């Protein structure tokens, strides 16, 4: 049994990821398309929410990836700080835009869904607000990567930001809950109005969630490979310049 850290070697990573990528990508496409078709065409309408319940199949998996994507970045940042594996830092960099787009998808589908349900596009519901804040965290993280030229410095600083940001993101979630349940009652209809979800919704939702996880994995692998190539290119160009 070889150590998992071997995959932190760029070459080894390129080999292994290149071998698995087509399968993961294919499976991701299958689950996503299959789950969405199942959810869109073959589920009944909810007695209360009507056909809008179909948005669930996009909204929930995106929200899940939005949060767990940040979690993955945190783990990758910690690995970089502790063991200084370059692939780890690049994986964190690669995951950020994916997580950000997923946050955006969750926000947009939430807003469109909220319009008929709550009568407004945007409610300062604790959950929506937390996602907006999460979006800002992603934005700051990506902007910091963009702003720094030296790749190792950028990896170090973004890791520090990711760790501190995680603590504050957690605090923000808590604070936002406090803020809206406090004196001012929030929106009375909550997304959690489905205590016992019927299996007709549950199974396509699970399929979509699996699809989204695989999709996230595919994109992160693809983007990490691109980042590794970019680093290699940078090394080559620097060498050319040094003669």
């Amino acid at each position, binding site marked *: 049994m070889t150590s998992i850290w071997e995959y932190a070697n760029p070459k080894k990573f390129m080999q292994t990821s290149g071998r698995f990528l087509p399968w993961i990508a294919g499976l991701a496409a299958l689950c996503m398309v299959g789950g969405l078709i199942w959810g869109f065409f073959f589920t009944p309408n909810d007695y209360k929410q009507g056909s809008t319940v179909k948005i669930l199949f996009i909204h929930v998996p995106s929200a899940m990836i939005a949060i767990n994507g940040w979690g993955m970045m945190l783990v990758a940042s910690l690995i970089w700080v502790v063991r200084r594996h370059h692939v780890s830092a690049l994986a964190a960099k690669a995951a950020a835009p994916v997580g950000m787009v997923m946050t955006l998808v969750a926000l947009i589908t939430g807003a469109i869904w909220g319009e008929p349900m709550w009568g407004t596009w945007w409610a300062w519901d604790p959950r929506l607000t937390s996602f907006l*804040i999460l979006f*800002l*965290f992603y*934005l*700051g993280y990506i*902007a*910091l990567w963009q*702003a*720094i030229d030296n790749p190792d*410095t950028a990896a*170090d*600083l973004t890791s*520090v*930001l990711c*760790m*501190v*940001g995680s603590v*504050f*993101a957690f*605090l*923000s979630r*808590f*604070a*936002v809950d*406090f*803020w809206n349940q*406090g*004196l001012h009652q929030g929106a009375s209809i909550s997304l959690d109005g489905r205590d016992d979800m019927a299996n007709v919704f549950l199974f396509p939702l699970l399929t979509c969630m699996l699809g989204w996880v695989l999709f996230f994995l595919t994109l992160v692998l693809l983007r990490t490979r691109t980042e590794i190539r970019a680093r290699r290119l940078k090394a080559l160009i620097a060498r050319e310049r040094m003669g």
Partner: protein
Amino acid sequence: MIGLLLRDLRLAVRAGGGFGLGLAFFLIVVVLVPLGVGPKADLLALIAPGILWVAALLACLLSLDRIFALDHEDGSLDLLATAPIPLEGVVTIKALAHWLTTGLPLTLASPLFGLLLHLPGPAYPWLMVSLGLGTPALSVIGTFGAALTVGLKRGGLLLSLLVLPLYVPTLIFGAEAVRRGAEGLSATTPLVLLAAITLGSIAALPFGSAAALRINLR
């Protein structure tokens, strides 16, 4: 350590308006808001706690990039990093100097600005207490952002982008305390939480700031 603090304060005074700049900005925001939302006293009273806190936050943000930028430009940051003071101490002192020049004057002057916004009577003590407890966190968190972006081109805008999400919990608890005070309720819970965030930030963030500075200096 005290030498560094005294130097920073002296520089702030000599630079002309180190203390005044934040206050002037605060005043401008407080004047602009009624011009924007209209002069109705009850409306202003309703939004005053939030406006006062947001204005304090922006006034803090305004001066953050100066925390390290000047020392970085003239080379003193390199020299400080090789001095006997640990870098964690340097960033703590820098945050303290920032608070003394922005947070503290804002806290002391806040009742005057509350008057302009028709802040209800019972809220005044809570306004001062919450600003007094909360603005140190703003300075410490801001110092962390400044340490991350020191030496970057266009660092100022990036600094705001990085720091503002980190300010969310402080803002929420601070403004909530004033709002509860204004409605005559007990503001103890948000104040305790605010104090917890401030203490936690003061205890832990200097290590992050020092780490970021070390990375940026090399």
